[in-house]
């Protein structure tokens, strides 16, 4: 076992434990804090996959923006959802069954696929990847259109969120 594999196993165990705590924790604030730990674990996976840029934007966007937004929303709606009473539906076993069946189906597809145990080739010039990605996002014959659509989507989401959540003056 190499050091990389040991790091992977430790991070995977912590991340999955935190992920399970996110969906089972009774207190919503605790769920949000476990979510932050899960997102950190995913950022470490990006580093292991030679995609350091994605680890950085994972920390900035997901932890810095989305998780904080979750904590704000949990605090704003705290009074009605106290920690008493059931936090799950009465037929939670059905949801668990569907999740397990989905995992079984995915695993079945994986074991029949011959590319499943590929090991990576060495990545040439890892630092130049960010330049390549940045140029690809703004060159018209590559990903300019999806990039601009994402910008429009973000503006629309911002305007929509302000309009929906804003205080209406009667």
């Amino acid at each position: 076992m190499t050091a990389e594999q040991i790091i992977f196993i430790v991070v995977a165990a912590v991340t999955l434990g935190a992920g399970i705590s996110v969906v089972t924790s009774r207190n919503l604030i605790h769920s949000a804090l476990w979510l932050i730990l899960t997102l950190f674990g995913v950022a470490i996976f990006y580093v292991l996959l030679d995609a350091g840029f994605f680890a950085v934007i994972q920390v900035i966007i997901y932890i810095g923006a989305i998780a904080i937004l979750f904590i704000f929303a949990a605090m704003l709606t705290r009074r009605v959802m106290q920690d008493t009473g059931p936090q799950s539906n009465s037929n939670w076993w059905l949801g668990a069954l569907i999740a397990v069946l989905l995992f079984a189906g995915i695993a079945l597809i994986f074991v029949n696929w011959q590319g499943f145990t590929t090991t990576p080739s060495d990545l040439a010039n890892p630092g130049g990847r960010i330049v390549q990605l940045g140029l690809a996002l703004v060159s018209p014959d590559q990903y300019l259109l999806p990039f601009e659509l994402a910008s429009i989507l973000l503006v629309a989401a911002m305007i929509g969120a302000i309009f929906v959540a804003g205080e209406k003056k009667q």
Partner: protein
Amino acid sequence: MIPLSWYLIFAAILFCVGLYGVLVRKNAIAILMGIELMLNSININLIAFWRYRSPDGIAGQAFAIIVFAVAAAEVAVGLALIISIYRRRSSVVAEDMNMLKW
């Protein structure tokens, strides 16, 4: 080196955990958290396939960037809707949000 299968199995488990949260939790904010877990596992898959299958291309990374943007937009609008509903009905339980049902 880590084989591709480890990443795929991990992402599949994380996706199923997120799906369980979406299906089972009562609180609408917790349902959105489950969706975030699912989007994260998808992103791990995209980056892992880029790294192992076509490290010379850029498509996987570009796709992951778009997923990031969509996730940010989705959670902003979703939480705004939940807060708006909370103002009108004083509830964040997904079962109570049945104004469009008749």
